[in-house]
């Protein structure tokens, strides 16, 4: 099966989308960009391929009539089992890497003690793994570093206390090992992992006999479909750091325009608020960019700004929007300078303003700036599509809807739940077109 991959290397996260030859999305993957774009691209690509397999399973099940539809729910069990497989595999890698740190001889005199403490910590982390991937379990992040890190820290602290051993030594082992593990390609093929996950899922769902055999055969058939990666296009800020040749690189402005067009073909204006830039893009009825504007030298009012505010308030980025939604009197904030944001925040708090009002005001300020960028690009033409990480923030969306109505009247505003993948989707479509247009894949490393 022919597939085309688009990778959007953003300043905060790296996204990958795999599409098939009919422009249908097979899979999406996301990871944190770290400071290593090559790894981020690899991990995001792998995640998209995993998601792609799940799509193939779903398609296969759907084609299998009644029996198939009966098992659609089984897919989520399978996915969770797969994630658990993946997690356990990386956890084992992390543990071995930690032990490998003794080779340097630095902790030779403490080796027995440290080894036994680490062993205990990992045993505890492993023991709770299944529960973390149980139905309905919530994970704060999908990135291994975040999940494993949080669990390791907690158990290491407890174990260190129990055996009267310095906690920092254990952390040191973790810190030294996590980067290595993160940057290491996963061992073994995806298919084997899916097979193991399938076994685990069948057991969990107590599916046996003929039904189990039928399911196994359907999944096996889809695993046997070879996904040929025919062409890849990279976009986003990290694109130039990758070993892609020029034909495999597109500007994120073009990719966002095309991606938005694919999601909503009637789109004429696109607003993308990313980590470090805000783009206003006009496209025609083929998704071709006719005009664009973006913030200049200064990243004031971009996604990073919200991240910085969240850090200042010691809350999670995802908590900002809900907090702002509680406000009924947003503060008037003019400056969207990220550097001044902390001072502005503390100043207003000291004046007795409510946190939710200040945060609501900050959201309004960044949207005002975005509106100014859009107007420089020629204003809003129906339909309007909002993309990028900030499109997930309900308070930002509320302000945007208000300001669009005030300035441009009734305009259809599209916000896709997968809007963060817009750039990667456009890139994947560029990859498909390049391939169909005769370009071949030998140019990409």
């Amino acid at each position, binding site marked *: 099966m022919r597939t085309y991959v688009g990778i959007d290397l953003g300043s905060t996260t790296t996204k990958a989308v795999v599409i098939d030859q009919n422009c249908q999305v097979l899979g999406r993957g996301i990871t944190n960009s770290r400071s290593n774009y090559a790894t981020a691209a690899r991990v995001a690509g792998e995640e998209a391929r995993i998601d792609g397999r799940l799509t193939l399973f779903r398609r296969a099940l759907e084609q299998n009539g009644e029996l198939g539809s009966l098992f659609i729910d089984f897919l989520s069990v399978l996915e969770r089992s797969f994630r658990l497989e993946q997690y356990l595999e990386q956890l084992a890698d992390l543990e071995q890497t930690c032990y490998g740190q003794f080779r340097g001889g630095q902790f030779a005199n403490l080796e027995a003690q440290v080894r036994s403490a680490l062993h205990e910590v990992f045993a505890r982390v492993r023991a709770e793994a299944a529960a973390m991937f149980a139905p309905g379990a919530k994970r704060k992040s999908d990135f291994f570093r975040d999940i494993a890190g949080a669990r390791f820290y907690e158990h290491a602290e407890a174990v260190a206390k129990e055996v009267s051993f310095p906690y920092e030594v254990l952390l040191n082992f973790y810190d030294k090992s996590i980067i290595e593990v993160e940057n290491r390609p996963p061992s073994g093929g995806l298919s084997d992992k899916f097979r193991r996950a399938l076994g685990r899922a069948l057991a969990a769902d107590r599916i046996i006999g003929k039904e189990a055999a039928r399911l196994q055969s359907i999944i096996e058939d889809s695993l046997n479909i070879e996904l040929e990666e025919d062409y890849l296009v990279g976009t986003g800020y990290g694109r130039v750091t990758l070993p892609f040749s020029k034909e495999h690189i597109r500007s994120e402005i073009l990719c966002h325009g095309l991606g938005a067009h694919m999601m909503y073909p009637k789109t004429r204006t696109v607003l993308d608020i990313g980590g470090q*830039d805000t783009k206003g893009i006009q496209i025609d009825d083929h998704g071709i*960019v*006719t005009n664009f504007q973006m913030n200049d030298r200064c990243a004031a009012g971009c996604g990073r700004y919200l991240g910085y505010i969240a850090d200042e308030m010691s809350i999670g980025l995802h908590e900002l929007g809900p907090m702002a939604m509680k406000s009924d009197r947003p503060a008037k904030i003019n400056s969207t300078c990220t550097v001044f944001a902390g001072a502005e925040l503390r100043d207003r708090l000291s004046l007795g303003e409510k946190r939710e009002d200040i945060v609501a005001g900050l959201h309004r300020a960044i949207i005002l700036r975005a509106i100014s960028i859009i107007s420089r690009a020629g204003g809003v033409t129906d339909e309007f599509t909002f993309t990028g990480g900030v499109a997930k923030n309900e308070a930002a969306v509320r302000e945007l809807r208000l300001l669009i109505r005030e300035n441009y009247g009734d305009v259809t505003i599209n916000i896709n739940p997968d809007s963060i993948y817009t750039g990667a989707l456009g890139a994947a479509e560029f990859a498909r077109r390049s391939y169909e247009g005769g370009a071949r894949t030998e140019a990409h490393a």
Partner: protein
Amino acid sequence: MNSNAPTAKARVKEVEKDASMQKQKEMMAGHYERLTSAAETGAKVCSTFVPGNLNELIGCFDLLNNLPEVNAIQNGLRRTSGQFVLEAEKIGHSEDVCTYVKSDIGMMAKGNLAPNGKKFPNPDVLLLSYTGCFTFMKWFELLREQFKCETIMLHTPYLADGKITRNMIEYMVKQLRDEVIPKLERVSGVKFDIDRLRERLGKSAQAEEDLVHVLQSAKHTPSPIDAYFGGIYYIGPIFGAFRGTDQAIDYYRFLRAEIDERLAQGKGPVTPEGELGRERYRLVVEGPPNYTNFRQFWKMFYDEGAVVVASSYTKVGGVYDFGFRHDASRPLESLAEYCLGVYTNRSLPMRIDMLTNYLEEYQADGLLINSIKSCNSFSAGQLLMMREVERRTGKPAAFIESDLVDPRYFSAANIKNRLESYFQMIEQRRASVRPAA
């Protein structure tokens, strides 16, 4: 590391320059030498600005011309403007003030050295030919305060209605006759001789003819010149101290022959890394370039095969491509017409007409605007101009932002990102109008 490996420095290729660039460099060096030895030679110095400069007239009084904004450009190219800008800010000039001004003020505060390392002479007279830039007036106010010398202002009426009227010319000729010339006579001690002026104006016209020929060579595909980055070298002598001299005639004759040769051989422009390969994009650029990262900025174009075929910036010291030439038979009137017609004195609709004309005449793919952070007189209205040019030509336009000589306002990643997006946008639009294969 292999000890036989060439050092990083040795690996850097020599910057390629064509013969005319070398010649231009020598002329500029000679000019700075004349200026910095004014004390020994007893020459008197007139500071004035590029737009609306009256070089032929200044020459009639044996005055040397010193152009503060050209000095700022030199400091930008030599990467010394950053420290001068900071120095001027230390003195009290705000962050938003024109960075030519701040580079100049900072340079004076830090020894006032010319590119040859010798001290600039103090001006004997400040001649402000006011052609649309309000900041120039304030700049000379500061210089007058510092040097306590004679100041002359020639007021050029703004072409708000898009045309030069008889009244305007009479008004300017009267100023020249009653104010400018008598004051220059007084400062220089030289009696005005109109025949000397006529002779110089005749020489100007000859050089102008060749300059226009060179700039219009970019109408060919591929263009033998880059009319923005290369164009800045080409306009140097005529916008600087050489208009109306034999040296300028020689230089432009030489340049014309060089460009004709390139044209005959079907060659593209010379970039600092050698001759441009395939011409992929033909652009019209509005606005000055960034000088602190000039090479890096240029590279973003030639690496992508982008050639600037026409630019408004190479018209700030005189618009010659629509027929105007200095005219020996109407000396003062001709100087007035020259000042009235310079790019900075043109209204927004006139600028739109010009850019539209360039896009069509030079068969360009689109318009690029480099908006200068600290130059309001250039930047005001640029977005509206862009929209109108887009509307009239149907060709795509793009907008980037930087500064003249303040390195703090050059964000390479941001500019490169926009330029690449723009080039790809042109490519995409080309593909969409191409009939399906």
